[in-house]
């Protein structure tokens, strides 16, 4: 049951997830080709974060399968391979500097050098030499740091949950440009937002998650 199409970065088949009586995801099929930016929109509480967590392997679906780069989550690997994630509000060790936090995480994966960590911090508009503890960071700075941790290992797939949360307009524009640059480098990006306009700027295709169903929508907002 592996995906034979090597142009696909991620595929889900029949994903179901319930919390109590609430069906959050109802038989969701989804395909994400390589080298594109796809967006998922929907109001808060519709299950976007849960879906992204399932894709990354952090949450197990009740039924269905997720494959990332032809590897079945839960059988071949426990978590999505070659993937960077930013889901919900990123949490860090508050007493450590942003750079120290990222270096620790990079040591767990063993996939990013200290120089690469510093580069990633620079790329999201933060100063890698800033020694202040994360507890002093604003919410926008924490969000940028979260994005830096997602990209620091140079993953082929990025799963980003509302990456521009807490950023001002200039900050949002910087992140958009950066994501578009990543796509040009061949990276694949899946992004969620409750702001459809944001997704319109960035995405090749936009999906809407509503009542547990994932439906592709055109840029004019109509369901296809």
């Amino acid at each position, binding site marked *: 049951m592996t995906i034979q199409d090597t142009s696909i970065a991620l595929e889900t088949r029949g994903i179901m997830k319930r919390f109590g009586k609430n069906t959050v995801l109802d038989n969701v099929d989804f395909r994400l080709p390589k080298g594109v930016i796809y967006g998922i929109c929907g109001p808060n509480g519709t299950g976007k974060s849960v879906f992204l967590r399932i894709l990354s392997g952090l949450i197990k679906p009740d039924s269905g399968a997720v494959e990332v780069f032809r590897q079945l989550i839960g059988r071949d690997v426990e978590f999505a391979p070659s993937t960077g994630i930013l889901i919900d509000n990123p949490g860090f060790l508050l007493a450590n500097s942003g750079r120290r936090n990222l270096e620790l995480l990079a040591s*767990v994966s063993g996939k990013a050098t200290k120089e690469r960590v510093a580069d990633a911090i620079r790329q999201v508009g933060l100063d890698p030499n800033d020694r202040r503890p994360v507890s002093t960071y604003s919410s926008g700075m924490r969000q940028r740091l979260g994005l830096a941790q997602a990209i620091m290992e140079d993953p082929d797939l990025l799963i980003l949950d509302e990456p521009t949360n807490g950023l001002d307009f200039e900050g949002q524009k910087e992140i958009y440009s950066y994501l578009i640059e990543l796509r040009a480098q061949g990276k694949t990006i899946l992004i969620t937002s409750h702001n459809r306009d944001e997704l319109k700027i960035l995405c090749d295709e936009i999906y809407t998650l509503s009542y547990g169903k994932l439906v592709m929508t055109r840029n004019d907002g109509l369901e296809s």
Partner: protein
Amino acid sequence: MRFQVFFRIQIQQLMLRWRWLLPLPVFGFLGYLLGNAIIVRNPPAFLQQSGADNMVNAWDALFTGFGNAYYMAFVIANLFLLLVCDSLPESPIGQLAVFRLGSRKSWWAGKSLSVLVAALMYTLSGMLILFTLTSLRLGFSWEWSKFGWSGDTILVPTLLLRQVKPFMAALILFGMDVLGFWALGMLMQVVTLLTRRFLFGYLAALLLLIGSLGVSGSLVNVPDVLKLLPPIRNLIMTFYPYPFREVAMGWSYLYWGIALAVLFSFGLILSRQQNYYSKE
């Protein structure tokens, strides 16, 4: 190397917190109470008149404090549970770390070992604080005091008291408590894995301890295996509510060893299905 870094993050999250200063006032106050109690039973006038050295010493306070079932259940073990109770559900940075670690099995091993380190540090610091403070008041000696020599008065089994010096007895107690706290911490984690609420984990471990106080009183004239069942009897050296012990100390080590093996295995099974999302 990857596991070591992950483990370091876990330890940092669990132990580099202000709450870990709490043992200082708690064990300090316990030492103050025990010092008072021992002096009341051995009035200073009597101690001076007797003219004999080593009438009482800090070991008396240490063994009485860590041997009293109520102090153990309501203060000492309870404080440990409070210190580590929210190590699960996994924190946001812990989730980022486990995602990079790539293994739920290693994650559970890291969680379990971090509770062991916490138990070691807690027991060591608790004993040191109590012992150091009461040394100032009651004095220090490498030998048993005359007050403690009967064993019953300081809640040490008489046979053990005849066989080993106080330092060795303290080591035996230390090992027993470290294993016990580790197991209770693991129980708390397993219940939290099941319920996703650390409060339930904490209450389960605390109720087991308090419940075992009640059960202990009724376990009379039963086989040795049953006598050992209440966890409180394996955290202190005597068989609460009696000031003596009927089963060798090694059985308590075995008791905790079995409990840890069962809890670790159970947690391993649960961790395979563990969902990581935001803390409650």
